[in-house]
């Protein structure tokens, strides 16, 4: 699935993560920019969760930016799910 609109979810607060998703032209694939205050310890885990969820939603041709401030796994999953659903036009929210 391809995002219909740019969308975001989350905040810059400690223990949270903000995801910004925007559509790319067809065939562009996935462009991921992941930053985290705990990149060394949990960077791989963050990337794994992001890729798994994008696979689950069959997301293609997207630019995803994540700025993580030490969010736990359920928070990462929740924020990413919300950003994806907003980008797909399935939910309302910000941006």
């Amino acid at each position, binding site marked *: 699935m391809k995002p219909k609109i740019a969308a975001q979810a989350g905040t810059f607060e*400690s223990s949270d993560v903000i995801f910004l998703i925007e559509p790319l032209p067809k065939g562009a694939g996935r462009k991921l920019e992941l930053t985290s205050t705990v990149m060394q310890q949990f960077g791989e885990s963050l990337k794994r969760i992001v890729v798994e969820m994008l696979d689950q939603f069959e997301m293609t041709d997207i630019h995803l930016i994540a700025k993580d401030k030490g969010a736990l796994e359920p928070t990462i999953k929740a924020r990413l799910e919300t950003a994806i659903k907003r980008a797909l036009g399935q939910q309302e929210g910000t941006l």
Partner: protein
Amino acid sequence: MLYIPGNNPAMIQQGGIYGADSILLDLEDAVALNQKDAARSLVRNMIKVTDFYDAEVCVRINHLSTPFGLADLEEIVPLQPSAIRYPKTESPEEVVELLKIIERIEDLHGLPHNRMTLHAMIETAMGVQNVFSIASQFSRIDAITIGGQDLTADMNIIYTPDGAGIDFARKRIIMAAKASHIDVIDTVFPDVNDEEGLRKETEYGKKIGFTGKAIINPRQIDIVHEVYTPTEEEIRKAYRIIKEFKANSAAGIGVFAIDGKMVDAPIVARAEYLLRLANVTVV
């Protein structure tokens, strides 16, 4: 009961460590309108895996008249938190509709209809008027609570520290809860810096019959616990009453005296209640 905004991951993940008896993950007034979807997803994901230790986990959903209430139920009911708190409950008919939806979702997921309970929140003048019919008819409602801030708004009055404007409502709600044999929880004390005011309001609430109090900050937990926890002296006195009652009952005596004071059925019932609260068994 500690209120925790449903869109705040830091507060949710720490919710269980403060020692509150229960936590309320709030999808309603604590969440901005354009973040309802985010909060719902966060609460759902957090409840699944977070250890809240001994605290009961309740979720306040949005009212079914809003665009969010049904989605809240569809995502939260399958998780079967201890309770769902329903805001601005005004009539038993509303509760019937709410329960129909909850039970439909539970049937879809193969869940029983008697595990998760409901708290009815009374926050309007109409709700206060109808509170007994709300509290008494539904076995799944095990608590009613008063929402002081919304009630004063509905009444077009200002909330004052002495609680004068909502005193009648408090007492009417308490009486309905007592007649229905369910818990009744007082409204929050909004000034987190006024510990003396919190203690005074909590003591008054206990005196008139509330069985607990909602709070908005972990700093308020200790004071509320101190007020509602039976003291050692109260426990000893209750223990003695029950011990004497058992001995006198065995001898066929219904009314007796302890230290010159009459002890009859109501005094015994109160002592039994206190010992249950303190989790003490008379041997």
